């Protein structure tokens, strides 16, 4: 099939990277052109958080889609999605640290420890760190495929913590509609994995 060939083409990764960079490009453009509404700091924090969650959904959808669509070429693209998601998570953390806490490290640390909602988000980011650090081909070789794969299961924890972080944040608004959407998507992707591990 044609689209499976496209996944294998030399263009696949750069095109995907460009697509994944579009939201960030828009946010930068919107920031400098005053398009983020009356509270740009809040808007940037929220939108980078949203894109991190979307990235997590996308990266966790790759294996199920690869199996269901019989498209092994999808696996080539997983790293690009993962690294992009980590970049959004970093910018999200930076927005909070800078706009909300004024980059005051003492205050920042106190705030992280004090508030479970911040602590959850921060933990999710910490779980992503070793994944980003071992996202190079040489790291897979160095760790060995099996150990590398085991380490990268941390992404399930990062996804769970991210949804909890979002849930806790939304208790202020008492409005969980969006939280349920992410929870449903990530939950189904995990349920599929459970099924797959049993029946493989």
């Amino acid at each position, binding site marked *: 099939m044609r689209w499976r060939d496209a996944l294998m083409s030399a263009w696949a990764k750069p095109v995907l990277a460009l697509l994944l960079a579009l939201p960030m490009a828009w946010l930068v453009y919107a920031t400098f052109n005053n398009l983020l509404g*009356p509270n740009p700091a809040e808007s940037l924090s929220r939108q980078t958080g949203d894109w991190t969650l979307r990235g997590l959904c996308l990266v966790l959808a790759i294996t199920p889609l690869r199996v269901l669509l019989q498209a092994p070429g999808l696996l080539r693209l997983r790293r690009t999605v993962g690294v992009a998601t980590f970049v959004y998570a970093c910018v999200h953390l930076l927005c909070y640290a800078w706009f909300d806490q004024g980059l005051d490290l003492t205050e920042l640390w106190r705030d992280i420890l004090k508030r479970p909602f911040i602590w959850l988000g921060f933990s999710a980011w910490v779980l992503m760190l070793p994944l980003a650090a071992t996202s190079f081909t040489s790291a897979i070789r160095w760790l060995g495929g099996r150990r590398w794969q085991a380490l990268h299961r941390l992404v399930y924890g990062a996804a769970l913590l991210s949804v909890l972080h979002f849930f806790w944040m939304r*208790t202020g*608004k008492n409005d969980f509609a969006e939280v349920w959407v992410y929870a449903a998507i990530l939950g189904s992707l995990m349920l599929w994995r459970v099924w797959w591990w049993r029946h493989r």
Partner: protein
Amino acid sequence: MLIKTFKDGFVHPVPSEITSPQVYQNRRQWLLNAGLSGLAAAGFEALAQTARPGELPPLPAKPSTVAAAMATDTLTPYKDATTYNNFYEFGTDKLDPVRNVRHFVVSPWSVEIEGMVKKPGRMHLEDLLKVSAMEERIYRMRCVEGWSMVMPWVGYSLSELIKRVEPLGSAKFVEFVTLADPKTMPYVGSRVLSWPYVEGLRMDEAMHPLTLLTFGLYGEVLPKQNGAPVRLNVPWKYGFKNAKSIVKIRFTDKQPATAWNKAAANEYGFYSNVNPNVDHPRWSQATERRIGEDGLLTKKRKTLMFNGYEAQVGQLYAGMDLAKNF
């Protein structure tokens, strides 16, 4: 971004007639600095009215002489004050209300006065407007979420209305019930809060001269998304205490069960006085971001005790443990 306006028919100024809030602020500042409030009331009223953004019918008012009623902070631009709103009947995103108020009907309107009061009854908006002389007041508004605005409201002290309806000695609290019309308010019926949205004050808080029964903003009648046609402003409390689009004012001897207190009692107390020393469980209340004025990288400003109205209202809470009665 598409910004819809809500012209009610009879005011159609050309852009050149609209004075920017900055110019307005400068004039106001000049008047205040000159200390000529009497002269201002008599002769320069026309100046104050040029502040009108020209979106809605005018609501003329004289600058208030109530202590601390004229904050000298920079005014929040009209556009920010009317597009960044928490009004959950129209959606939980702050940009939702301005998009969703299209079908909200604010005329005719009446307010039911009921409960422990000598003169209960239904008051039409026209009569409510005549209870006392309209005053312009510039209040700081601190949202519980950690941001703030400064807005020029038009109205009169709620105490004027309370005195007129003569509450019984047994009345200890005032409850404000707001409109919950699922036909015109798309989020009424959502599970976000229990509807109608109810707020309440202790009688002495309700009688405080700074507690404003509000009918206008920026020299014009209230925009729908800001709680038209009649709302409350209690400037030393978090913004959600300011009930919008009020339909009932009830005098009672029991502390009213208020909307956010019912939704999350550990997060939102009945008093909800602005207090930088008592944090919300999920965020600090020590600082705030001023909308429309503070830039992205401006360090957040310190939140003041009772939102800076401590000298006026501190004695209402003398001897109370404010960490417990948050």
